[in-house]
């Protein structure tokens, strides 16, 4: 029952959202059925569109973890964008410093630098909440703006490659010091990092004592302290791990996509990542599924413009509608189950998910 529920409810929500979006499209003068067909074709219809979807899902995997890991410990992190940006800056600085070294060494250094920068960025925000009572939601917002200002200052100032002319950027990485692509595709290896990170996070939070302790701290700080858990340390570590993921996403943008640091690091992946985390109900495996779904949506945005003459904002409307329905569907969990359990005479003892 639980399994059926966890498949049926999200699909029901998506179907409901799609119907509402279809009505919206019809009012805007497009044939909803053709729009659905286009969305499917552009997002998931062929291996070609799957590649597009996977490319777009790649940064979302890591940005989703940035919110979902600390959420286990009861802290809502929304500083993903800032962590990605500082991670990217850390990565390019480390990469440029080690360009004379072998590529594997350079890439590893970049990864470590990015994870440190992003990790410390979010750990700071989480520590502020735990030790000083400054809400992580607020400090995260402010830190996002600060990270972007800091990036602009560095890229237009000390880190700027004078030959970057009209598109201010840092010096580039050499081609062999960049992340490779899967041969014959346009999907870069960065997505592997995301998938592996999700798997590790899943083991960490669902299969280890650390994960269990986190859950207790997230449930009730008093209880956690009573059983002797170092709550402060735990939540800061969770924040660090989350931030490290977002930082790594920044490194992938630098090492796989742009090959240098520029202002496009600030592309909004961080904010989408927050949604991914909530839609997946903070489960690392859920992040995998939801990222691919959102990636597909992003991939099909262009098709709506080209094939149906709908404005560029249409895909944003669709995202908004779908996310609202999926969030709403969370309330349905357990309702069927209780009824079923009562019907079969079994006492419902696991309503809370």
């Amino acid at each position, binding site marked *: 029952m639980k399994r059926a529920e966890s498949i049926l409810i999200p699909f029901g929500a998506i179907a409901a959202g799609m119907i509402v979006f279809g009505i919206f499209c019809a009012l805007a003068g497009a044939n909803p059925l053709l729009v659905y067909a286009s969305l499917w074709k552009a997002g998931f219809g062929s291996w070609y569109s799957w590649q597009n979807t996977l490319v777009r899902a790649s940064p979302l995997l890591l940005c989703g973890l940035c919110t979902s890991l600390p959420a286990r410990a009861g802290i809502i992190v929304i500083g993903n964008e800032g962590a990605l940006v500082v991670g990217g800056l850390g990565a390019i600085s480390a990469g440029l410093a080690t360009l004379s070294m072998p590529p594997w060494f350079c890439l590893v250094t970049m990864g470590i630098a990015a994870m440190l920068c992003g990790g410390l960025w979010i750990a700071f925000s989480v520590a502020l909440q735990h030790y000083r009572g400054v809400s992580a939601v607020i400090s995260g917002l402010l830190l996002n703006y600060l990270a972007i200002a800091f990036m602009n200052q560095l890229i*237009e100032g000390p880190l*700027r490659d004078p030959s970057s*002319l*009209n*598109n201010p950027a840092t010096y580039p990485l050499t081609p062999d010091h960049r992340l490779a692509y899967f041969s014959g595709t346009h999907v870069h290896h960065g997505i592997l990092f995301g998938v592996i990170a999700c798997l590790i996070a899943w083991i960490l939070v669902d299969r280890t004592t650390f994960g269990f302790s986190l859950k207790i701290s997230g449930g009730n700080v008093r209880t956690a302290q009573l059983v002797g858990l170092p709550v402060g340390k735990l939540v800061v570590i969770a924040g660090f791990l989350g931030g490290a993921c977002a930082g790594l996403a920044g490194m992938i943008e630098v090492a796989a996509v742009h090959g240098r640091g520029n202002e496009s690091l600030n592309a909004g992946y961080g904010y989408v990542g927050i949604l991914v985390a909530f839609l997946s109900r903070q489960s690392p495996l859920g992040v995998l599924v939801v990222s691919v779904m959102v990636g597909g949506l992003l991939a099909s945005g262009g098709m709506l413009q080209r094939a149906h003459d709908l404005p*560029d*904002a249409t895909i944003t409307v669709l995202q908004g509608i779908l996310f609202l329905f999926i969030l709403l569907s969370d309330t349905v969990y357990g309702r069927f189950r209780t009824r079923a359990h009562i019907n079969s005479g079994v006492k419902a003892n696991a309503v809370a998910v």
Partner: protein
Amino acid sequence: MTRRELLAGLAAPALLPAASTNQPLTVGFIYNGPKNDLGYNQSHAEGKATLRRFPWVKAIDEASVPETVAAEESMRDMIFQDNASVIFATSFGHLDPFTIDVARENPSVQFFHCGGLYDEAKHPKNIGIYFGFIDEVEFLSGMLAGLSTRTGKLGFVAAKPIPQVLRNINSFTLGARSVNPRATTKVVFTGDWVLPVREAEASSSLVDQGIDVLTGHTGSPRVIVQTAERRGVFGCGYQFDQSSMAPHGFLTGAQWAWGTVYVRIAEMVRAGKSVTNGTIPRRLTGTLKDEFCKLSPYGPSVTEQSRSRIAAAKASILNGSLEIYRGPIRDNEGHTVVPAGRTLGITDVALDKMDWLVEGVDGRAHG
């Protein structure tokens, strides 16, 4: 007939110019912002619209394509889903690495990128660069500003200190000082292309400092022109015709005419030419003379006398007797940047690397 011959026979029609088949020529455009910004993106969208006159062209576009992998994927979609054989990437950041990567994967498709420099070592052969040199139009716009100002103080709200922006600040100032040697230009950088509130704040504080002609270079300087109007000073537009934003105080402006480029490239492709084999120029640039850009219509407060002076200067630019980067030119830190007796033509590559602000500009060329 061997299998190879059969394949060659099948492939042959593909090599013929598009005109010989009934297939329309599909042309794809990507812009990095909305199509109705009354600025840079709209100037390209309007350029695309001029292709409607050709029934054999099917033009498609995507707006708000950021300078990330999204740009690559949009171009690929146009190629694979819509059979586009020509792609125009209109934003500077779409080139490296996105257009380059997609061009390398699709050698039979021609790519044209707006702005930048072609680098034979790095870029595949099927990429062409097109751009307009709008300096002369900015010069004329600056002349009118210099003729209209009473305080001799001009204001320029700019997004970022990059060469393209510096060229516009400099040519505008050179134009103003050519008729009004006391004129100075104060520059305020906002830090990004679309920040309407900050642009309005910047314009307003410039007027507080006694500036009485405002212009700018952002994604769409409409806010700057409008703020000028509200504060009762003159405004000069950029990117697109912004005369509607300031019914009283609009002077003129430098605006793009990308339709010229798009029509010309479409006709060349139809005639079987290709950037890949060099029959379409690798670097297709144009000036005021080539109608890649033009002066916006004059506002009502521009006097007959000013109009005729601008017309005369325009005629001298068109016949080549007035070159705007003619030495001696000094920058605002006292260094000579163009020595006496030398002239930099506006297509000179040295200007694409501009990192100085001309004497008379109050501002700094480095962040």
